[in-house]
C-alpha cells in the first residue's frame, strides 16, 4: 500500500517496525483506521496528559473524511473507566477496594453518562464501523497464544483486521507485540521507541 507521494504507508520498514508517531503531520491515514480505547480516553478527557496530542489527531482523522473502526468492547471499557474515575476521585489509590461503596455511585453514574454521550457524539460526527465482539471471537485468542498480547488488546487488534485495516491508533504499547506485518501502530512519539523495542524480530 503506497500513497501517491511514494511514501510507505504501513510499517514494513526495518527502521520503523510499523510504529509511527501521530504527531507527524505527514503521517498517511489509511481508510478505515481503527481506534483503541486508550486513544479515545485521551482524546475525550481534557485533563488527560495526552489530550493535546490525541485530540488534534482525532480532528485530523475527521478532516480527512476517513472512516473509523471501533470494537463494541470500547464502549464497555469507557464505562469502566468512568466508574473507576468516580472511585479514584473519592478514594485515591485505594479505589479498587471500594468498588461496592454506594456513595461513589451517583458520581460514577454522572461520569458514565458524560463519557458515553461524548463518545456517541464522536461517533456521530464521522463514518464509523462498529465491530461486535462476536465477529472477532475466533481470532483474538489466537493472537494471545501466538504473540502473548493481552486479551483486550487482542480483541481490538482482531477488530482492526476484521474490518480490513492494518492500522490502529493507540497509546498502549502492548499492540507492538504483534508483528509489523500484521498490524501498524500509530501512537504518540513518547511511546514509539518502546513499541519498536517490543516488536517481534
Amino acid at each position, binding site marked *: 500500500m503506497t500513497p501517491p507521494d511514494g511514501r510507505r504507508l504501513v510499517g514494513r520498514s526495518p527502521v520503523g517496525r510499523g510504529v509511527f508517531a501521530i504527531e507527524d503531520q505527514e503521517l498517511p491515514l489509511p481508510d478505515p483506521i481503527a481506534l483503541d480505547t486508550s486513544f479515545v480516553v485521551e482524546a475525550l478527557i481534557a485533563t488527560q496528559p495526552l489530550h493535546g496530542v490525541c485530540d488534534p489527531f482525532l480532528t485530523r482523522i475527521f478532516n480527512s473524511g476517513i472512516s473509523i473502526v471501533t470494537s463494541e468492547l470500547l464502549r464497555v471499557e469507557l464505562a469502566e473507566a468512568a466508574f473507576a*474515575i468516580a472511585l479514584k476521585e473519592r478514594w485515591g489509590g485505594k479505589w479498587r477496594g471500594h468498588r461496592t461503596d454506594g456513595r461513589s455511585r451517583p458520581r460514577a453514574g454522572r461520569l458514565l453518562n458524560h463519557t458515553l454521550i461524548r463518545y456517541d457524539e464522536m461517533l456521530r460526527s464521522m463514518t464509523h464501523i462498529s465491530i*461486535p465482539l462476536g465477529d472477532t471471537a475466533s481470532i483474538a485468542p489466537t493472537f494471545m497464544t501466538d504473540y502473548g498480547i493481552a486479551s483486550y488488546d487482542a480483541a481490538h487488534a482482531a477488530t482492526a483486521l476484521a474490518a480490513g485495516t492494518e492500522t490502529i491508533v493507540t497509546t498502549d504499547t502492548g499492540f507492538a507485540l504483534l508483528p509489523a506485518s500484521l498490524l501498524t501502530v500509530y501512537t504518540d512519539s513518547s511511546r514509539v521507541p518502546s513499541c519498536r523495542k517490543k516488536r517481534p524480530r
Partner: protein
Amino acid sequence: MDSLGPSRVWENLPHTMPAVIFGLGETLLAPACCGAGRVEVRSGGRGWWIERAVPSLAYCGLLVGSDPFEPNRFTSQRGAAIMEGVAKTQTNGKIERLSPERLAELTHPPAYKTVEERRAALKRATEGFRVKVRVTPDMYGRR
C-alpha cells in the same frame, strides 16, 4: 431393489482415490468396488459390500444424498458436530476479514448532515470534559 432404495447411489468417486473406508468391522477399498464410477446400492454382489459400508459412506459424506453437515439416520448429530469442529480448527490462526456485506451492515454514516454540525459534535465530544484524577489503563481493565 434393496431396502435402501434406488436413491442411494454412490457416484463419481475417482478411481485413483485411495479411499479406504472403515466400517462395520470390515474394510472396503472404495475404488475396487466402483468400477464404473457410479454404483447403485443393490442386494448381492459388490452392492452388498457397499450396503454394508453405507454407514461409513454416509459418515464420510461419500454417499450421494448424504450431506456431512446434515445429520442423517446413521450419523445423527455426530457428523455435523465433527465437521463443525474441523471447520473451527481450519480457520484457527487465519485472519478472518468480514465480508463486504457484513461490513456494510456494521457501517454507520455520520448522524449529522452538514460538515459544520459534524465538526460541532466532535468539538462537544472532545472539549471541556475535566476530571480530578488521571485515567490510567488499569482503570479500564488494561495492565
